């Protein structure tokens, strides 16, 4: 979305393609036209994401008017329609309210209504339910997936909640320290987690079907400080499966099965993983290395870390 202020936030390299167009190459006014209209975004904290001194009406109408030649009363009618669509009762009255007169869940509904106002092709939801109660989470997620399906909007859901991933998504990229470390259809990812980080995430989450007394296996350590980019695999310091090469180079994202054709998207997306020493299926379900005599490779001295 190119929303981060420069120079602190900048894109170091690569491409960001949207409908065949590299977003990095667009100038600011072209990018502005895409924002909200083609690509919309919902943020983590609904309590701070709406402007406190403007009414909901002002904030919704201005969104519509920013991209459409439309009269004020038509835009207002559209805003009422959107609010009732996201399940806000008495939308005509609520339009005149200020954000502080809404609860967190209701504000996130307003955010969703606003994001879908122009029927964007892509909706980026950045931890949309992190700040909400569990019961409200379920409502908001259900609403989000239903509306996205109705409008034909693709959703990128950013979350650390694997339950949400399992319930909401079709394809998953697991990211660690800015790298995609595993990519697969969601069903395949949960059936056959292949990266130590994915395995770690699954084992650090309480499950209803766990054996009584079965301990959670936390991931030791803390994520790296990205201002000092590590050499090698960024997960190596916390990884139980690390081998000596993990300290030296970032492994490429490669298909699990050797194949000639890699599908990046869709239901047949190829299961890919970036790891020098992948856990086996048994190890993945145990949550730790099972090989006899295996110990994690120690950090080499003078490796430049």
């Amino acid at each position, binding site marked *: 979305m190119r*929303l981060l202020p420069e120079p602190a936030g900048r894109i170091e390299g690569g491409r960001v393609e949207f409908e065949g167009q590299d977003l990095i190459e667009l100038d600011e006014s072209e990018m502005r036209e895409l924002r909200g209209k083609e690509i919309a975004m919902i*943020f983590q904290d609904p309590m*701070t994401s709406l*402007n406190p*001194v403007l009414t909901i009406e002002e904030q919704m109408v201005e*969104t519509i008017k*920013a991209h459409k030649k439309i009269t004020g009363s038509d835009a207002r009618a559209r805003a009422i329609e959107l609010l009732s669509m996201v399940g806000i009762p008495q939308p005509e009255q609520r339009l005149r309210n200020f954000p*502080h007169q809404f609860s967190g869940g209701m504000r996130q509904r307003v955010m969703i209504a*606003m994001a879908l106002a122009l029927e964007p092709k892509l909706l980026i939801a950045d931890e949309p339910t992190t700040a909400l109660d569990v019961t409200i989470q379920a409502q908001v997620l259900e609403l989000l997936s239903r509306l996205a399906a109705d409008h034909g909007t693709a959703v990128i859901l950013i979350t650390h909640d694997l339950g949400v991933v399992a319930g909401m998504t079709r394809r998953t990229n697991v990211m660690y320290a800015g790298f995609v470390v595993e990519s697969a259809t969601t069903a395949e990812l949960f059936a056959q987690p292949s990266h130590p980080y994915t395995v770690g995430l699954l084992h650090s989450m309480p499950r209803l079907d766990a054996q009584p007394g079965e301990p959670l296996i936390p991931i030791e350590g803390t994520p790296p400080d990205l201002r000092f980019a590590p050499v090698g695999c960024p997960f190596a310091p916390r990884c139980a499966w690390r081998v000596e090469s993990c300290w030296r180079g970032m492994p490429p994202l490669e298909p699990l099965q050797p194949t000639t054709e890699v599908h990046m998207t869709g239901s047949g997306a190829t299961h890919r993983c970036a790891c020098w020493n992948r856990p086996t299926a048994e190890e993945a379900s145990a949550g730790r290395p099972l090989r006899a005599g295996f110990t994690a490779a120690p950090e080499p001295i003078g490796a430049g870390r």
Partner: protein
Amino acid sequence: MLRFIVRRVLGAIPILFGLSVILFMFLRLLPGDPAIAILGQHATPQLIAQIHETLGLDKPLYVQYLNYLGQLLQGNFGASIIDSRAVADTFAIRFPITVELTIGALIFAVGLGIPLGRLAARHPNGWIDGLVTVVSLFGISIPIFVLGYTLAFIFAVELHLLPYPGPIDPRLSVDPVTHFPIIDAVLSGNPGAVVDAFAHLILPAIALGSIPLAIVTRITRASVIDVSNEDYVRTARAKGLTRKRVDDRHIMRNAWLPVTTVIGLQVGSLLGGAVLTETVFGWPGVGSWVVTSIQNHDYIVVQSLILIFATIFLTVNLIVDIGYAFLNPRIRYS
């Protein structure tokens, strides 16, 4: 909202009462006898005693205070012991001049300070920001009498661009109707007088406005930078609004809040604190009146004026609080 206003007005009463006591005591403790100020250094003891009796200065302090308070509650601020004119009358003549000067200074400070603050906030720590910081530090640091005389010397004495001193050229003999120099000039129907009155206002408004300008600039800059980092500004940009709309509506509507408070405080202190500027530029407003009254030991004028300034200050603050409630819906509805 009405309850809020009533509560605030009632809250001001004890403050004013306490202030009147402190003022009364304080001015009596100052060295110098008003009788000597009136009669001169070679007055006879009999004459001095006579003056003391006329002014009530021979009575005990608490009696003097109660007399004063009684008069005050009837709306009588007393009369000057120098020229015997009622304080309220002279105030009505002089206050408009101070108000005009204050408005001029505010237009200069706010009109320049807010754009400067926004400009500096646009690229924090860039060279524009640095320049604005230096200018505003300069504005705060330089004493008004230095800035005032320097401006007068350069623009009036050397370059002859602007008139000095006073609020209007006395040779135009404009009739004082409202006592606002510019309004009186307009009422006189003489276009030359209007231009002259405006020209007279420029230099003192700059001198008086230099400190508020610096403060408004700094607060605007800080406030805009602060608001720019808010989540809802990111939301506004994510919605595809133009930069201008994000700046004007989403950032400024919120950034105004602290700026308004500061402007209000400045109005309060400008109305009472134009002492130096009025003296430097020869404006016969209330500021220069305070100075001459102190020199003359005219304690009645001084204590009344300070009380009036305090009332004005409290009133302005109240108005700011109410204005704040209008700008900020979270206060309005609580």
